[in-house]
């Protein structure tokens, strides 16, 4: 479980701070989201991750002579879903183009992508900065394209291996305008986007498996300068942490170059995760001429208003809407609402608990506290939780109706985690019901007061602190089962008699 907003504050200035007045950074991101379709973008082969090399590549993926691509309708639906969720223009007419270049893991010698007329036009995404401010990031476009295969450089003597399982896997490339001004902001944007595609259920968003990858375009300029600086593209970014580090490194590097009187080259750089630095990959002069042209094997995609309306009906509640609703409907704080809506699954879990008439704040505290900690410790996702929403609700019900105390509830929680029992069964078996009978509590208090006459005398003579001592002793004698509020009230009454 990751939080959409980190707890640290978000400084807008650049590091080091002495450069803050003179330089600002401009960042635009290109995000490749792997769509979770059953089959590939232009072939019927499966697109699941992790299969044995070259077992998920059919004649079309191998680019055998004579084969032809057929567009996957599901991928188109997913792209439109995304477009609608960022209020984008969905053009009536969209075309596929060939991007021509030679590489051994690109079987056709071209990638089928979109150049002019992408499937999703201009839209925007609102992100919440840590200081609570909202910022709108413009999205230039999003287009469909197929992924390449993988070159394997280890284990082949003097040769490379090619695995074409990934070749033809559908990607949605989401291109932002250069509206981001710091590495932290870039990460917030990426996390917001990540949450969104997971909500839309169009990608598993798995960063380790490469389902969510990012290229960053970074430039710097003087604060008063209107013109953008020379842009450097950083490739190979596939974790939020590295993205932040890579962009920061690149900003610092560019400022350093400029302050030494040098100039930034327009080039593509690769981020080395071991050395934590970017290094040149290719310069503008070696920039490839991809010779884009409309793919004659594919017809234009024509999207009607009716079709868009149909897709609109299938849109789930989006993270920002849900975030707002959680605040208003459940009276949760901004922070709680952000955390609970950070993934669709977590938000669903929360609402399933609340639906059982559990107080909203109590449910929020337990899910973000006890449950989150336990899941983290066992490295499990909310979907893999051994305690489902119903069982957790059962436990919280007993806290709410004061059958057990919060302290006891933690023991019951541990039992729930490892057994199949319900909370009520556990409470029953271990006799954990809270003692709420006034006379029983009164009797216990009397016993303790009799047992500690010296402390009683000290208290009466003004040592107020000893109140806690009596609470502790009574609680201990009860096995922790007394309702603490009730105990406080009764004890106070008796001591003041």
């Amino acid at each position, binding site marked *: 479980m990751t939080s959409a907003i980190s707890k640290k504050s978000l400084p807008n200035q650049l590091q080091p701070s002495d450069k803050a007045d003179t330089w600002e950074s401009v960042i635009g991101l290109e995000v490749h989201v792997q769509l979770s379709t059953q089959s590939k973008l232009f072939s019927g082969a499966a697109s699941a991750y992790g299969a044995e090399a070259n077992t998920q590549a059919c004649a079309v993926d*191998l680019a055998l*002579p004579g084969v*032809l691509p057929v567009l996957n309708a599901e991928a188109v639906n997913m792209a439109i879903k995304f477009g609608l969720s960022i209020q984008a223009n969905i053009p009536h007419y969209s075309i596929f183009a060939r991007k*021509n270049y*030679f590489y051994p893991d690109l079987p056709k*010698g071209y990638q089928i992508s979109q150049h002019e007329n992408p499937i999703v036009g201009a839209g925007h995404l609102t992100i919440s900065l840590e200081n609570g401010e909202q910022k709108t990031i413009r999205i230039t476009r999003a287009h469909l394209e197929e992924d390449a295969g993988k070159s394997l450089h280890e284990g082949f003597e003097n040769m490379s291996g*090619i695995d074409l399982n990934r070749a033809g896997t559908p990607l949605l490339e989401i291109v932002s305008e250069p509206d981001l001004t710091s590495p932290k902001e870039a990460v917030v944007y990426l996390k917001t986007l990540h949450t969104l595609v997971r909500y839309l259920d169009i990608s598993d968003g798995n960063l380790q498996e490469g389902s969510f990858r990012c290229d960053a375009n970074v430039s710097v300029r003087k604060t008063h300068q209107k013109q953008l600086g020379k842009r450097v593209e950083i490739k190979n970014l596939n974790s939020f942490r590295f993205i932040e580090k890579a962009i920061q490194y690149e900003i610092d590097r560019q400022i350093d170059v400029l302050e030494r009187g040098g100039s930034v080259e327009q080039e593509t750089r690769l981020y080395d995760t071991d050395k934590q630095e970017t290094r040149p990959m290719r310069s503008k002069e070696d920039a490839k001429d991809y010779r884009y042209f409309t793919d*004659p*094997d*594919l017809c234009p995609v024509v999207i009607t208003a009716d079709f868009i309306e149909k897709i609109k009906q299938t849109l789930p509640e989006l993270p920002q809407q849900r975030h707002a609703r959680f605040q208003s409907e459940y009276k949760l704080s901004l922070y709680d609402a952000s955390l609970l809506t950070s993934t669709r699954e977590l938000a669903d879990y929360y609402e399933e608990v609340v639906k059982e008439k559990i107080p909203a704040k109590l449910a929020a505290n337990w899910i973000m506290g006890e449950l989150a900690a336990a899941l983290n410790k066992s490295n499990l996702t909310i979907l893999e939780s051994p305690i489902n929403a119903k069982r957790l609700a059962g436990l919280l019900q007993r806290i709410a109706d004061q059958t057990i105390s919060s302290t006891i509830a933690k023991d019951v929680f541990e039992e729930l985690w490892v057994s199949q029992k319900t909370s009520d069964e556990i409470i029953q078996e271990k006799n954990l019901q809270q003692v709420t009978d006034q006379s029983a509590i009164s009797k216990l208090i009397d016993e303790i007061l009799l047992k500690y006459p010296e402390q009683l005398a000290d208290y009466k003579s003004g040592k107020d602190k000893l109140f806690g001592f009596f609470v502790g002793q009574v609680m201990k004698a009860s096995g922790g089962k007394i309702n603490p509020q009730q105990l406080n009230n009764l004890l106070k009454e008796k001591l003041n008699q």
Partner: protein
Amino acid sequence: MHNYTITELSNALRAKKVSSTELTQLFLARIDKFDKILNSFITVTPTLALEQAKQADLQYQKGSAGPLTGIPFAHKDIFCTAGIKTSCASKMLDNFIAPYDATLVTRLNQAGTVLLGKTNMDEFAMGSSNENSFYGAVKNPWDISRVPGGSSGGSSAAVAARLTPAATGTDTGGSIRQPAALCNLTGLKPTYGRISRYGLIAFASSLDQAGPMTQTAEDAALLMNAMASFDDKDSTSIDRAVPNYLSTLNDSLEGLKIGLPKEYFSEDLDPKVAATIQAAIKLYENLGAKISSVSLPNCHLVIPLYYIIASAECSSNLARYDGVRYGYRCNNPTDLKDLYERTRGEGFGNEVKRRLLMGTYVLSAGSYDAYYAKAQKIRGLLIQEFKEAFQQVDVLLGPTTPTTAFKLGEKVNDPVSMYLSDIYTIAINLAGLPAISIPAGFIDGLPLGMQLIGSPFTEAKLLNTAHRYQQETDWHKKVPENFNL
């Protein structure tokens, strides 16, 4: 019996006058006897053919045979055939055994045809003389010092010499019609999208179209009934009902409006060619057709237009031949660049390289707008021009080629003059129209073809127009004497 049409062979099989096995043996023997001279086949498949013939004979016994069951046949070596070498006449694919059947091949297999082998062609269908084959030039049976036309020159020579009753071809700029014309055959290029391209090795995707090469329009109709289909594996194939092409063959031509593009009958036209075509026009008039003149003002641009668009597409289509996954790979590559350069340098022939260079150039950043983008605009104009012409007439008529078959070697070193041999056929591919070439007479002992052009999906009308002409003439029945033994 080797001069029988498919229709006649089908009748003979049904009447049990001959078995498919006997027919197959007959044609295999003819290939054995004559193809040393013609070089029209790249691969002959006798074992498969005799096995298929045996199955066909069983079907005749069971009474489940269709009109094409047991008919010996040949595919241009551009169609993928499972388990059989599919070379595209290139060194690049000399070792390539296709693991799947093209949709067209599947359909003809299901119709029961017997595959004699795969025919020679210009490498990757690039050429007009069949001299650009890794397996050597094909000879024209009418005069073996001359070319059979291209790129489907193996199919045209084989059918003309009756080494097979019919064959498939593909037509990107005239590659069915021009060799049909030079070898005295009937060759139909259907509307773009009428026959699936799945499994047809791509040259220029927006122009390539498969079609039948036969002795008669009737045979072409028979084959079209099996070949035409919508295919969900080809996004450019069109989901439109396929008519029975045989049912309208004998329709009257009374009132048929035939247009003569005046640009096809300019002063430059060889007088003997003009006279031959005029005689055919006269015949159509006698059959009740109304003749008028139409204009296609932009058709002088078709050669450059074609060489921009077709080359651009092929430069991308042929990028997959990189020595990585299948096909030719150079010996001992030192690194990736060396692997690419030598594999492609050694694997492709000169004409292919010429077009790859041309295509790469017209798509490159500095030239795209001046060439490729402009060509696409003119292509739009050309389509419009044809549309307007077909508002006035039903069918366009003209010569298929400016000359009869030229000498082997005559144009090898003059690519532009070679390209001009397709001047009348190229526009049809750019506009995606159907057109048929049929025998129209002889000039100095060599056959000349006449082309009939229709609006989209009027194959039935073209076959009808061609068939009625063939009912009145016997040009199409003439065979080259040296091979009629």
